[in-house]
């Protein structure tokens, strides 16, 4: 079965208002699957549901064949789903490397006691995890900043740090919430390359993004949400031509044309 992540009739309401309503979709292993839709359509809410940060009001979520509804976020993370956030959730009290090391947390085994007495085994493990973390920083082009305090990083680098940190959990599926927001066009295309690189590592990606150039370039398949509901699903070509999507979200062709009048 190559269905990887799958939801059925997923619904999430906040005080009576449905942010996600009756949503069913499925992604394929190894693909880049993008979710687009107007602001407030429920994309971030969907990510929060998939990662266990919100509990669904109703409906099912299956990942790699088993249900993950009701699991706490750290369990879901250990099952292989990781994410980046729309508002970066960087540990600002740490250096770049330390941030990434936290991603390796669940791949360590030394407990409180052996850590407290600094057992040789825990020290070996620490060295190994550090190696891994550096590897991921290098992959995201941040290795030269490893010892920097993360609170002094500009926005774009925070975004990449989130990716490096998420990769350190060794995810099978990476959810990325607007990774290109706040990046200029050149930086955005670098982010596109990074996403493709991640896909090459064999990691499936789910992407939420408003930058259509990026989305259309990297996605294998797209899901369009509107007011929390399914609007359309298809390949980039199909979606770009879909009139419903154009009306609700994309607008006509090059939107900025009329700005010249």
């Amino acid at each position, binding site marked *: 079965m190559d269905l990887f992540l799958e939801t059925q009739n997923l619904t999430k309401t906040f005080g009576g208002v449905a942010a996600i309503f009756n949503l069913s979709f499925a992604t394929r292993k190894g693909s880049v699957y993008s979710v687009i839709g107007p602001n407030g359509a429920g994309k971030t809410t969907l990510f929060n549901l998939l990662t266990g*940060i919100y509990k669904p009001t109703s409906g099912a979520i299956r990942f790699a064949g088993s249900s993950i509804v009701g699991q706490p976020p750290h369990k879901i*993370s250990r099952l292989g789903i990781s994410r980046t956030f729309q508002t970066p959730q*960087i*540990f600002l009290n*740490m250096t770049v490397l330390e941030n990434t090391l936290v991603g390796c*947390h*669940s791949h360590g085994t030394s407990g409180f006691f052996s*850590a*407290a007495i*600094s057992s040789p085994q825990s020290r070996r493990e620490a060295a190994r995890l550090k190696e891994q973390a550096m590897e991921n920083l290098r992959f995201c082009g941040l290795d030269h900043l490893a010892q920097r305090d993360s609170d002094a990083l500009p926005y774009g680098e925070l975004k990449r740090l989130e990716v490096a940190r998420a990769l350190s959990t060794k995810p099978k599926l990476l959810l990325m919430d607007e990774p290109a927001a706040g990046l200029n066009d050149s930086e955005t295309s670098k982010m596109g390359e990074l996403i493709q690189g991640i896909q090459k590592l064999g990691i499936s990606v789910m992407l939420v993004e408003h930058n259509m150039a990026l989305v259309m370039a990297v996605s294998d398949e797209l899901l369009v949400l509107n007011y929390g509901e399914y609007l359309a699903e298809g390949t980039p070509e199909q979606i770009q031509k879909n009139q419903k999507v154009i009306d609700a979200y994309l607008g006509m062709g090059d939107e900025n044309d009329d700005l010249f009048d």
Partner: protein
Amino acid sequence: MNRYRGFFVLALIIIIAPIIFPDSYFVTVVGVTIALNALVAVGLNLLMGYTGQISLGHAAFFGIGAYSSGLLTTMFSWNPWFALLMGLLVTWLVAEIIARPILRLKGHYLAMATLGFGIIINILMVQPTHITGGPDGLSDIPVLNILGWDIDSDIRWYIVANGALLLGVWLALNLINSRIGLALRAVHGSEVGAQMMGVDIERIKIRIFVVSALFAAFAGSLFAHQQAFISPDSFSFHFSIELVVMVVLGGMASNYGPIFGAAVLTMLPETLVVFEDYEVLILGAIMMGIMIFLPQGLWVGLSQKIKPLFLNKATSSVESVGG
């Protein structure tokens, strides 16, 4: 190794102090109080400074340790060491039970809940007079005995208390520099972020709460034996607040800040006694002054101010990396 450098300096200071001032009241008597307070503060700092969870109830754990030792040795004539172990065990249990619901709270709600917990425990020390001795407390707590040595003189207590402190600091250092330590700091930085990295934040918060409670209980047991008398007044919420002040005044999230804070806050009243009625006034003013001018605490603040004086040349080259 680099991370132990501060530790060795601390050890050196502790060893040298009584050699230079062998019979000084400030070293051998106040020094013991400092060491015990510092031990609690180091534990509390794991919780507050690194994990970002405030506790205004740690005097309670200190008290549970003290009362376990006091009660079991005086009423049931237990061996002090078993009593001490029992104290740790009871603390573990209490902390484990209370931690789950309490640590779900955040910020000031957490502060209030821990404060309330501390007050409840204190009332439990005062009220059942027939068990705890009530407000008059427990007297004649026997001395501790290590390998045939009775710990009955001030200098011996100095050695024991500071030995315990060094042990505590060493454990805390290791913990903070480990995978666990990073996870703790991550919880402080962003709870959702930490969760998504696979950190079981609920569990790890509970664990560190228990650990810091055990630090306090251990210090409390030693305190009971050292004083030979305990009463609820020593474990009131004032002491909880004092502990928090030690941690913050000294400097959070640095291993030596809380020790420094404990030393300063223990010494201050001792030195201010000469001002009699003005003592309280001056103490308050000093606290405000430190926090206004060195908001990161004495340790961090002072070392930031002092370091450039020594490392003038070195830092100027480091600075340019920022650009």
